[in-house]
Every structure is written in C-alpha cells, then in structure tokens.
C-alpha cells in the first residue's frame, strides 16, 4: 500500500468553485477559466502515489500550485474535489478530531519562512507538537532535545528563534517536525529562503538523516538542481496540473513534452547523469582468441584497444593496438600483452565524479556492474555530449546501431 495516494485532487479558489469543473474537463487553460469565471485553479486533477521511505519532490515555477498541493495533503486547505489517502485512510472525509489525530501522529510540516513561534524558546517550539497532545512535560522535553540533537542544535534549547541564523532557524523547524516522529514530512520550499551554501548543507543533512529515518518526504521546490539532488522521484507541475512524474534521470533523459524539456535545459547535468547514461557499447574479445583476430577486430571496428572479458562478460583487462602488434610479431598470446590495470567506474558514477578519469585516460573508461561485468565504456566525447543533452534513451546493448567509434586515440 502506498503511504500517500492522491486521486484526482482539485482545488479551485473562489466562490462556487464547481463552475470550473466543466471547463477543466474540457481541458481549458487556467487563464481561460479565470477570464470566464473569475475562479483560480490552484490544483488541477492531480493523482500520484508516494511509497513509504520515498522522497517525492514536487517541482514547478512560482504559482504552479505546489504550496496549495502540499497544504491539501494535511488539509490546511480544503480540497474542492478528489481523495487523499494516507495509509489507505481517506482524510478528506475526516471530522476535525480525526484530522487532528492524523496531523499529530503522521504528518510533520516544515515551512518556507520557518514559521517558528517568536514568543517561545527553541525548545518550546520543538515541543509544540507534543504539547498539543498533552504529553507530560518531562517526556516531551526529552523528545524535543533528541530532535534538536538530530539537527545539530544541542545547547540552543533556551535561545529565542530570532537569535538564530536562518539556517539554524530552519533546523529548529525541521526538529519541530521530527519531534512527533511522524511518518510523513511535508516540506514546502523548506530550504528556498536559505543562502546557497547553507542550502546545500541542509540538503546533504536531510539526505543523511533520511538514510536512518526512512520518512516519507513530500518535498516542494522551485529549484530543479535541488529536485534532482534530493528526489527519488519528481513531479513537475504547471498551472496546477502534474506534467510529468519520474526519476530525476527519466525527467532529464525523457522529457514528456516541450515544457519539461525547457525546464531541464539549463540544469547542471553532470550532477545527475551517470556513466550508464553516456556509455557506449564496449568492443570486447576473449582470451581464447589470438593476436591476429584481435588486430582484425580493431581494424573492422576502427578502434585502438579492446577490452578482454571472460565468457560471462566479466572484465579481465585491456589490450592496446601496439602491444597486440608486437605480440603477433613475437608470437605471444593476448594474455601476455594484456594490461590488467583498467580505468573503471560503476554504472551509477556521476559524470562530475569521473571527469578527471576520462580526461587523463588514453583508453575509454570501462563501466562495470555486478560481479565486475562489463556494461560499456565511456569515451571523452560522450561526457561532453551528455552534458550537452545527448544521452542514451535506451541501454547501449539494445542499441547496436549506435555503435560508433569506440576509442578516441
């Protein structure tokens, strides 16, 4: 069962919102609907599922309905239509008391401008969610202190929020949400108000916390780099509707339409794309072949080196043209002239982590998977091509026709 399941969720702002339904069904634009009815489409027939432990990012430009969507999930905003299931329970039909219980036990929220209570100390802020559940003072202080320790703010318990820097204030906001130990974190542009460097720290810390916490996180952002870095999956919103849902790689490599394509145009791909996205099919040979076969193969393929694999495609080494030439003259075997030192990366190594390796290697870099199996190779040109947007839409082994020059040298 998905942790969160949203079905056809719609929010229309204005009087008699149902007037907009017919227009929405006809697929009329948000601007049209506003012109004809004066109603604002906040969220338009959105459906998605989030699995437990997943970081689901909702991304879009300002005004695309992200904040409205996240506030519908805990019903800070009442939906006009649709269902919201949390652990299979529809919260739209809940009465005030049931809703309070769900908010207390299952849903923590972190706000863009922190929304700390200025009249309460840091500790009292973090205690808030426990206090409203009438948990005894001692117990809630202990839990609040633990939450503060998690975000690295031990020792600041008695400060007032306005004595802290922005980054620290948002740590308090995060601690406040974590103190109740909710299953779900709703984070509305939680890091957008922070300086870039501090924002990056917070992103890293959130990811680190997540490895131990395993919360289900609904993370809102307008920043694509942030979305790509944090998200297990990303939903891209426009005018209240979801345009595409996919993993960061899918969004980058398979934009659903021109809008998404435009959106991802300027992204720093080196932080998202991995070796598997730019690798080519490797030219290989097995050790039972002789040097002559190897030379012929190189000639046919137009390459200057071959990777040596065993029958199960496990990488053993590499042979280069001049060495093979010498071997055939001196009647040596491939094994005698094979180089066992091979530049290797794994399939999910990011491009920005392999620049140096690719640049200073005189042969293509091998990409290996489980059990050292050779999956493909990365050549210098491919890295640049990948950064420019040329990526594999299929895996290289499917794409025989894409077989091109293998080696640069």
């Amino acid at each position, binding site marked *: 069962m998905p942790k969160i399941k949203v079905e056809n969720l719609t929010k229309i702002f204005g009087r008699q919102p149902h007037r907009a339904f017919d227009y929405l069904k006809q697929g009329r634009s948000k601007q049209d609907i506003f012109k004809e009815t004066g109603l604002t489409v906040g969220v338009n027939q959105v459906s998605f599922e989030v699995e437990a432990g997943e970081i689901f990012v909702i991304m879009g430009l300002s005004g695309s309905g992200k904040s409205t969507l996240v*506030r519908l999930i*805990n019903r*800070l905003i009442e939906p006009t239509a649709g269902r919201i299931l949390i652990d299979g329970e529809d919260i739209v039909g809940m009465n005030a008391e049931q*809703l*309070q*219980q*769900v*908010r*207390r036990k299952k*849903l*923590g*929220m972190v*706000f863009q*401008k922190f*929304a*700390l*209570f*200025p*009249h*309460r*100390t840091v500790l009292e802020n973090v205690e*808030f*969610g426990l*206090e*409203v*559940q009438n948990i005894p003072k001692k117990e809630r202080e202990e839990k609040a202190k633990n939450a503060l320790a998690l975000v690295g703010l031990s020792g600041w318990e008695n400060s*007032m*929020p*306005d004595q802290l820097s922005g980054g620290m204030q948002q740590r308090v906001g995060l601690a*406040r949400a974590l103190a*109740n130990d909710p299953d779900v974190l*709703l984070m509305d542009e939680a890091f957008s108000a922070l300086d870039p460097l501090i924002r990056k720290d917070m992103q890293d810390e959130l990811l680190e916390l997540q490895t131990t916490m395993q919360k289900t996180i609904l993370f809102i952002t307008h920043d694509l780099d942030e979305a790509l870095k944090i998200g297990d999956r990303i939903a891209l919103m426009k005018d209240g509707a979801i345009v595409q849902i996919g993993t960061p790689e899918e969004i980058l490599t398979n934009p659903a339409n021109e809008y998404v394509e435009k959106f991802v145009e300027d992204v720093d791909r080196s932080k998202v794309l991995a070796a598997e996205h730019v690798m080519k099919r490797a030219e290989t040979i097995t050790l039972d072949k002789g040097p002559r076969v190897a030379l012929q193969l190189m000639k046919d393929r137009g390459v200057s080196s071959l990777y040596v694999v065993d029958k199960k495609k496990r990488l053993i080494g590499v042979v280069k043209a001049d060495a093979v030439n010498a071997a055939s003259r001196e009647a040596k075997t491939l094994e005698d002239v094979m180089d066992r030192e091979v530049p290797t990366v794994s399939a999910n190594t990011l491009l920005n982590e392999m620049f140096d390796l690719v640049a200073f290697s005189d042969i293509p870099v091998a990409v290996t998977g489980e059990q050292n199996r050779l999956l493909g190779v990365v050549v210098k040109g491919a890295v640049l091509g990948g950064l420019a947007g040329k990526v594999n839409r299929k895996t290289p082994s499917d794409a025989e026709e894409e077989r091109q020059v293998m080696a640069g040298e």
Partner: protein
Amino acid sequence: MSELFPKLPLDRWVERLVQYLDEHFGLVFDVISAGIGSTVDLFSLIFTSLPDWLLIIGFTLLAYKVGRLRVALFTLVGLLLIANLGYWEHSMETLALVLTAGLISIVIGVPAGIWCARNDSVRNVVTPLLDFMQTMPAFVYLIPAIFFFGLGKVPGVIASVIFAMPPTIRLTNLGIRQVPKELIEASDAFGSTSWQKLFKVQLPLAKTTIMAGVNQSIMLALSMVVIASMIGAKGLGADVYRAVTQINIGTGFEAGLAIVIMAILLDRITQNMGKKKNVQEG
C-alpha cells in the same frame, strides 16, 4: 414636509423599550447593580482604608516594576502632590470607579474581541455597533443608566463601560487577526485544537495589541468617570463639577490637576505592562 411625513416617534419608542426592559428584567438589573456596587465598594474600601503613605509606596514600586525609574519617580511625586492638595480620598474613589469599569471592559471586551476575530459575521455586526457606541456623546449613556440603576456610582460605571469597552474589543480582534498566517498554519499543521491555538499562539502574539486596547479603555473609563459625577458618582469628577458650577477657578484647577496626574499614571503603568511582558517573552 412635516405635514406629509409626521415625525417618527423614535423618542417614544426608546422610552417604551426602556420601560419594558425595566418592568420585565428588573431582577437582572438588581443583580448587576449589586455586583458592580460591591466591586466599587471593595476597591474603595481597600484604597481609602489603607494609610496613604503605604499606598504611595506600593504604587511607586508597581510603577518601578512595570516601567522605568522615570515612571516610578513621576508616580511618587504625583501622588505626594495629590495627597498634599487634599484630594487623596477622592482620587482613590475615582481610581476604584476606573478600575471597576476597566475590569468589566476587559472581562467582556477581550472575549468579545476574540469572538469577532474568529467569526467574520460577528465582526460585521459588532463593528458598526462599536462605532455607534463611540460616536454617541458620552453622557447620553447616562440617561438609560440612571433609569435602570438610579443615581450614583453604578450607572456611572455602566456608562463608563459602554463608552470605554470598544477599543479593547477592536484591538483584541485586530491583534488576533494580525498573527501571521504562517504561524496559524504551523499551529494547525501540528494538530492543535482551536482553543490550543488561541491560548498558545494567538493570544500570546496578540498581547501587545490587546494591552494597547486595554490602555485606551482605561483612559476612556477615566474620562467617563469624571463625566459620571454629574449623576452622583463620587470622586475627583465631583470636585471639578462643583468647581465649575460655582465658577471656582482655583479649586477647579487643583481637582483638574489631580485628574491629569491620575490619567498619566494609569496610562504609563498600563502601557508598560503590555510592553514589559513582551520583552521578557521575546
């Protein structure tokens, strides 16, 4: 004109309504009257039976606690002057009236303001009512007050309450509505009930504004208590009233000065009460 449309008998209607109320709710008025009367008497008793030097020290310490040294000094000098001029007892009677009226204004006004803040329809009904209450010449309230409660301090207090309460209602409403939306959202998102939200978030954050309203109410109550001396409420107002009717400039000035001193005192002390607490809590 007047032949075509004879004058509406508004005056007679109001009179009839007042009479009706008096006949059918006499008991209610008696209870209210007794409650207000005994509150004033209690305050009066405290203020007039304790020795003046003790009270002066007490007020000075209070002023020092909520305000600064300057406020404390002013309190000391001002009260000594009042005692020296011989207006001590009347000042304390005035204070008893003001505190009673102020207390009732708060007890009714703050909850009324909260109600307005939580309910737009209530606010829409109450706001014009408040405008009406404040723009009506103050002593008009004396007339029905006399009718229901006779002469003396009780109608004086009631007229003062009607006249003085609007700022407390208004600013309580405003203070609560001014609490940033994000903080309300945070409070809701963590599952607080609406009472928890009120007491843990809205009221603490609205406190400065509410105290500003209370301060205004107390000042208005003081001005009305002076007017109420026309219907027999005791205190400094009576001294001024007598001086004016007898064209006695000297006494008029002295009594007037005592009122001004009381006014400044009440103003500074209530003003600082709102501020000081706010500083402590952030």
